[in-house]
């Protein structure tokens, strides 16, 4: 083995072709992953994002070789690895539940993969130092995992993954047990490390913020299927379907059911209860090529694209304040407009009373329309 630090070692491109996973629970077949095709490029930071039970962890475990693949193929750097055992695939994995070796000290835990490969003590020591300082673990190296907090244990697990010289680094919710301060810190370091070393990373999380912040590309998954694979920016502003739009963003996107009517060279959207009416023109994020008058659609608009205004305009609506939260950095406003409830991200410390009437303007450039049947974006 060559002597080197944490810089990138091997080329690695991960390709999944129609990968499926079924398992049986009480004789009932459960389809955990229903055919996934994706390619994680060499040096890419890819995030698998989705709610719990969406198949993201299962997919990652199949890449690692910890779960047999029901159907389909997985390629690492062009080589099919379906039949390789986990130990032979040269992948490193940081487990969500740490998976530390309790009888060993932190130092021994982190060094374990290198010791198992019988690297020289000098190499182990120098890499250990580098990883420990990256994750701020120098102080706890001689303690056993049981004496560390959940966050620190998770750091140790991450360190044990990063110290390796693997083709691909898999990380399963590696920041989930950190407090929010640490999470910002480690997120920043991880991203900086990736920008420096360009290792191939597949990162699993259910936290959309984390995904947006870290990923080169995000694979949004739900119900065992890939929903969208794209850059964070596109995922956020051009969600392919209803699920992606709803899952990404906090507070989540507002959805209003209604219909489209022709107007000028565009359309006018009217909500079902007629309380809300907005022009939808070419500058919106989605515009149907053609639509019959009265075609039902779902209008989506993000909370930060609605803002209280003083005077009404073409893009404004009248609403009634239901709840106003001042959260320091920002304010969240929940308002009612007919039968629709809208959540608005606003400035903090507005003086608003419950039941107060308010005019809000909706950014016409950021409107998204969905087909209510297919739930796809128009």
């Amino acid at each position, binding site marked *: 083995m060559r002597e080197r630090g944490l810089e990138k070692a091997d080329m690695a491109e991960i390709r999944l072709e129609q990968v499926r996973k079924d398992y049986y629970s009480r004789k009932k077949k459960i389809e955990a992953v229903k055919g996934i095709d994706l390619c994680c490029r060499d040096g890419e930071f890819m995030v698998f994002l989705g*709610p*719990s039970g969406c198949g993201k962890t299962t997919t990652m475990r199949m890449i690692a070789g910890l779960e047999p693949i029901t159907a389909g193929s997985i390629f690492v750097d062009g080589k099919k690895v379906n039949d390789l055992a986990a130990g032979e695939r040269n992948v490193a994995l940081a487990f969500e539940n740490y998976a530390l070796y309790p009888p060993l000290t932190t130092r021994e835990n982190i060094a374990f993969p290198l010791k198992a490969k019988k690297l020289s003590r000098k190499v182990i020591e120098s890499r250990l130092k580098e990883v420990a300082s990256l994750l701020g673990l120098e102080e706890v190296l001689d303690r056993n995992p049981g004496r560390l907090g959940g966050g620190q244990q998770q750091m140790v697990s991450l360190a044990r993954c990063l110290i390796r010289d693997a083709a691909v680094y898999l990380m399963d919710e590696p920041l989930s047990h950190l*407090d*929010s*301060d640490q999470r*910002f810190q480690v*997120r*920043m370091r991880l*991203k*900086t490390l990736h*920008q420096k070393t360009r290792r191939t990373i597949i990162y699993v999380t*259910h*936290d*959309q*913020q984390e995904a*947006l*912040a*870290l990923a080169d590309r995000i694979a949004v998954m739900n119900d065992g299927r890939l929903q969208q694979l794209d850059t*964070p*920016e596109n995922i*956020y502003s051009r969600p392919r379907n209803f699920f992606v739009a709803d899952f*990404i*963003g*906090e*507070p*989540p996107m507002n959805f209003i059911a209604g219909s489209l009517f022709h107007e000028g060279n565009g359309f006018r959207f009217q909500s079902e209860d007629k309380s809300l009416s907005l022009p939808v023109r070419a500058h919106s994020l989605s515009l149907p090529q053609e639509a019959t008058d009265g075609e039902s659609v779902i209008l989506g608009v*993000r*909370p*930060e694209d609605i803002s209280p205004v003083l005077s009404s305009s073409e893009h404004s609506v009248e609403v009634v304040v*239901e*709840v106003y*939260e*001042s*959260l*320091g*950095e920002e304010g*969240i406003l*929940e308002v009612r407009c007919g039968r629709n409830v809208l959540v608005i*991200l606003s400035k903090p*410390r507005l003086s608003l009373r*419950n039941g107060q009437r308010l005019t809000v303007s909706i950014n016409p450039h950021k409107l998204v329309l969905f087909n209510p049947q297919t739930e796809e974006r128009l």
Partner: protein
Amino acid sequence: MASVSLINVTKKYGRIPAVSQLNLEVKATEFFVIFGPAGAGKTSTLKMIAGLEEVTEGEISIGDTRVRARASDEIDVAMIFETYALYPHFTVFENMAFPLKSKYRKLDSAEIRSRVEDVSRSLEIEGFLQRYPAELSGGQKQRVSLGRALVRKPRVFLMDEPLSHLDAKLRHQMRRELKKLRNKLQTSVIFVTHDYMEALSLADRIAVLDKGRLRQVGTPDEIYLAPEDVFVASLFGQPRINLVEGLVLNQNDRLFFSTTDGAIVFPIPAGLRECLERSNLEKITAGIRPTSIQIIREQSPAAVRVWSFLSEDTGSKHLYYMRIGETSLTGITESGGIMEKPEKLFISVETEKVLYFDHAGKRIREG
């Protein structure tokens, strides 16, 4: 509806004090949040109010009755537990009816039924009344535990991190629902949390605890805008407030803040002058919230040149991690696009929003 007062309350486990010399006065119908990091003594305080834990020293009273240890059954407060604490062998209905059947209430079954049904309708759990807790999702369990407290119409509600086990989306949504509910509820609520957003959103007043000691009591605005010390300032806001050490400079009879290496210099508001001069402070710490840092693309007189080594796009916000000399800063903007690689930027600081702390971490106030 009753006030709650804690006078010099201390709680020790063995010799280790979990709560020391705590004085709190919760007014009737107030929504009072006890906030602090893990190990601050929040839950111990709540359990002492409920009579579930013995008070080592001091006195707690609800209305005009003094709380005695081990007399939790008598004191008529309702508590919502972090883990919900539903009775696993009872249905949802039986869970909610249980407090109404105790010897202190003993309502007749028609009354019990109507109360349970009313509350479950308002919480939208009327469809689950015959289910067992094991068959419910986390959010539903949370509602049932809320319902079990609401049917009682107790004098005080105690809530121990009731939202902490919900996933982020549901948690934010339930927080707003709780806020709506709170407007209807004319009862005092003592709510324990470590989530600063819950504290700011829900509270009439917040008490910040640290290692069993009270750091500050105040309205959410007071706590956020005028924190007593560095500790309180850094607990509220995400990412957390930038703490920059530096010196007070006097130039042309105006006071300036300058980092020790002189890389960032900005004026100190005139109002603080008197205090700074009186206490003769030289070394101070400036607390700059990430939101008070503006990223600007071009040079201007007020601009500071920084090296931004990383930026993150989290949808509605952009985070910039920066370095200026020996100082690290984090900034948030609502827009600005993402940098592909590290680059030089200019920032300006909203100087009127900067907080200043002395060497002991106390905030320097006007006058």
